[in-house]
């Protein structure tokens, strides 16, 4: 639902970098935590609509959802948290701490050769 706001922020960040690099961006890698509630298709759609007639038009957005990590309170193991199997994969203990979700990051931009 808020993907348009996020797409606008991504567009601004890529455009700023493009200005710095004096080149046309053709692809960008985004990563976010699964709990950030971002839908890949919606974000791509919003980005496509907003980037029309900008330096980012036709840019290929590659979005990677990172699993949420949890830390077992018994054995300290850090593991990818699975909603359907919420036990430590190492010691089977069921008390754990959810670690902060991965932030929404603009990881990398691919620019066209000058």
């Amino acid at each position: 639902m808020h993907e348009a706001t996020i797409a606008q922020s991504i567009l601004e960040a890529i455009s700023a970098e493009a200005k710095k690099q004096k080149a046309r961006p053709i692809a960008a890698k985004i990563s976010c935590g699964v709990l950030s509630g971002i839908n890949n298709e919606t974000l791509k759609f919003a980005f496509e609509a907003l980037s029309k007639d900008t330096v980012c038009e036709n840019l290929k957005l590659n979005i990677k959802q990172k699993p949420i990590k949890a830390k077992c309170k018994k054995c300290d193991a850090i593991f990818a948290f699975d909603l359907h199997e919420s036990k430590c994969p190492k010691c089977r203990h069921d008390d754990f701490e959810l670690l902060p979700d991965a932030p929404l990051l603009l990881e990398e931009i691919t620019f066209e050769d000058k």
Partner: protein
Amino acid sequence: MRKVKVRKKILIANEEYASKNRSFLKERKIPCLNVISSPGSGKTTLLAKTIEALKGKVSIGVIEGDIQTDIDAKRIRKAGAPAVQINTDGACHLSAAQISNAFHKLPIDRLDLIFVENVGNLVCPSTFDLGETDKIAVLSVPEGDDKPAKYPMIFARAAVVLINKIDILAATDFNVKKVKADISKLNKNTKIFLVSAKTGVGMKQWCDWLENLADNKRKKILKKTRPRQ
């Protein structure tokens, strides 16, 4: 083709405001609870009844988030607490910057506790950090017992889940045991209160928890302001 590593945080503006809010609250030792639920779960009634029950014990201020109208802020003021209404004009969540502004419209120095009643929505508000002390999820019985499984984001992050409208439990298929198990699967430490804001059932336990939260903050202040020997 040339690749440039950027590693730039996208929602940095919101994060900056959220951490500003966090230090603002920490300095003043005021806990702030971000209340998140679907529309119609009874958040405002619950807050109004909580304010009435804690009158004279805990001084509460409320930040109300709605897409339109100030109906909720009026209801809160009628219950006896100062309230600031934020209208998001269509946005599905409150942002940390809006909360930052609202803090300055509340009589902060007189408050022991702040509630933020977020826009009725189980999805987006759970993504946007407001700098709150804790998130509180409200789930009402008529919504059904599958919500924690369907909307795990908020239930995994909430310190407290209030199961509201428990008075109509008998008329529904809502399975309290299943909900409790689903929530506990996401977070074993979540406190769950079964309440009915309308009849008052379970409200004492919830209000005791709040009183304790506000008290602990106050005790910390006393400790700090006591002159050194």
